[in-house]
């Protein structure tokens, strides 16, 4: 596709240098909270609350990190987050590929109705049906369990949608026909032909699912009362209420929660941004 000639976009009323300066200033503001968080996490208590505020620590220390693990089971919170996010990611990928492949490559009665139903309910905010979902889990005793926490994150309408689009446009029907002519079963075709050809969409969905589950807050807040089930977000919040003034430790805990997302972003930046861009084009 031909792209817009960028030079034609210059509005002209701002000199190039001013544009660059504003861009740099904006970027600095965007990363400031993270830099501030990281810097504070290395400050000894005497340097955290000082006036005027100083960005970099004079005598950097790891004491806050040891302190955080000593004050609350952050190792457990971290592993809980990893486990819940990994489980949700795997499940979202499986359900998205299965449903995406069927909706993209087969015709059957009710196909459109079901697909539209999956898409439209995605608009309804989770916060508005969390109460009935909670009530639903009481009789089966899933309140205060890992499976209860992870349940709402096991399916992703956007994932089904993206996989349907991707499989519909990248997997040629001739390939499926050829496999059928060779006597392959439909299930074999799905697992061995369609799934391997949709890895790029699968990785995008996987990233979204992981990030979404990692940041999950309101549902775990409702359903996890036992501290041993807390994810990082809940653990941090509880820790904050108990140690609201110890910002050094709070920032160390926060860094632990942000770090995996930052690492993932550094490694997969291009894919993440492209996937986000895709939501707009298709939306």
């Amino acid at each position, binding site marked *: 596709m031909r792209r817009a000639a960028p030079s034609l976009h210059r509005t002209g009323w701002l000199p190039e240098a001013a544009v660059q300066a504003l861009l740099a200033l904006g970027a600095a503001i965007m990363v400031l909270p993270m830099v*501030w968080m990281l810097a504070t996490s290395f400050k000894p208590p005497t340097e955290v609350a000082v006036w005027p505020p100083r960005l970099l620590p004079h005598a950097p220390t790891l004491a806050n990190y040891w302190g955080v693990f000593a004050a609350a089971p952050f190792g457990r919170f971290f592993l809980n987050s990893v486990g819940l996010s990994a489980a949700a990611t795997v499940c979202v990928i499986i359900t998205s590929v299965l449903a995406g492949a069927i909706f993209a490559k*087969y015709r059957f009665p009710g196909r459109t109705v079901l697909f539209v139903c999956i898409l439209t309910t995605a608009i309804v905010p989770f916060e508005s049906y969390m109460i009935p979902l909670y009530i639903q889990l009481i009789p089966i005793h899933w309140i205060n369990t890992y499976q209860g926490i992870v349940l709402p994150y096991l399916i992703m309408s956007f994932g089904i949608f993206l996989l349907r689009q991707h499989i519909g446009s990248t997997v040629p029907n001739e390939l499926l026909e050829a496999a059928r002519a060779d006597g392959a079963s439909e299930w074999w075709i799905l697992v061995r032909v369609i799934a391997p050809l949709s890895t790029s969409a699968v990785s995008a969905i996987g990233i979204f699912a992981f990030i979404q589950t990692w940041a999950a807050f309101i549902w775990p807040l409702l359903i996890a009362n036992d501290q041993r089930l807390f994810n990082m977000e809940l653990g941090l919040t509880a820790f904050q209420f108990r140690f609201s003034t110890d910002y050094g430790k709070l920032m160390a805990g*926060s860094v632990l929660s942000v770090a995996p997302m930052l690492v993932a972003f550094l490694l997969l930046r291009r894919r993440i941004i492209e996937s986000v861009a895709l939501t707009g084009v298709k*939306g």
Partner: protein
Amino acid sequence: MSRTLPVTAPAARAPARRVSRRWGTYVYCFLVLLPVLALFAYIRLFPIARSVVLSLYNWNLASSHRPFVGLANYARLSSDENFLLALKNTTLYSISTVLCSTVLALPLALALTRATWSSTLYQALYFLPVITPMVPMAIAWKWIYDYNYGIFNYLLSLAHLPAVGWLVSAGVALWALVIMGVWKILGYNLILFLVGIRNIPAVYFEASSIDGAAGWARFRFITLPLLKPILLYVLVTATIQAYNVFTQVYVMTLGSQSAPGQAVRVLVYDIYENGFHFFRMGYASAEAVVLTLIVLGLTVIQFGAVRGEEA
């Protein structure tokens, strides 16, 4: 299309085989979809439907007497001061966050259109807040907003202005949340606008430069109209997201939340409080249905606007 089999004898067997094969395909499709649809129904469809039903009952978690009350919950909502305050705050928060983040993201996207390494770098930096989890960032912002040692009050002191209680004064806390909300979503809007601008065929700009259009005129009459579908999409998705604001309110302003002043009461907090502090599940569900209706209304408006554009 008729499904009756042809009556001519020689042709009869082949279509029969085709029909049975077609039924085999249907069965296969539903078998594969079954686990997905079952999960979908259990965690989404049933709860959504049930929230409407619950809203018609006086459904208390702590009581087994749960009478049907019709629309009484909705009638009570219309005079519930907490709910009305929450509705007002959430609406104000959503409109401000969405407008500010859109107005800032659009010129940023224009400045970053050219595919250079610096554009890539800036995209990444501006996008960073989007992928960071809300709780730790809310804690960091709380520290930035701190009355005694925060950066914001330090900057005010440099300008010889009095310190502001960012998260405790009723009039200010909402705007403190808006600032953080804009910070969080700006990069997302930026990326979508960037895609939109880059997808505008160059021929439009060539034609406009032949006609002598430049600068503001080009933006106003070429870029903006062609960007309209993306713009609408951004506005609506950002508004929907903003209406669900909860986590940062909980982390940053709790403590003042239940205080008499009620620094920032938002819709989802009100639902949470009614449902899980007072166990008024029916009443909270009525609020939840109102939230859904607001969001659906916004979506319908978007579809209408885009369709109007295409017609």
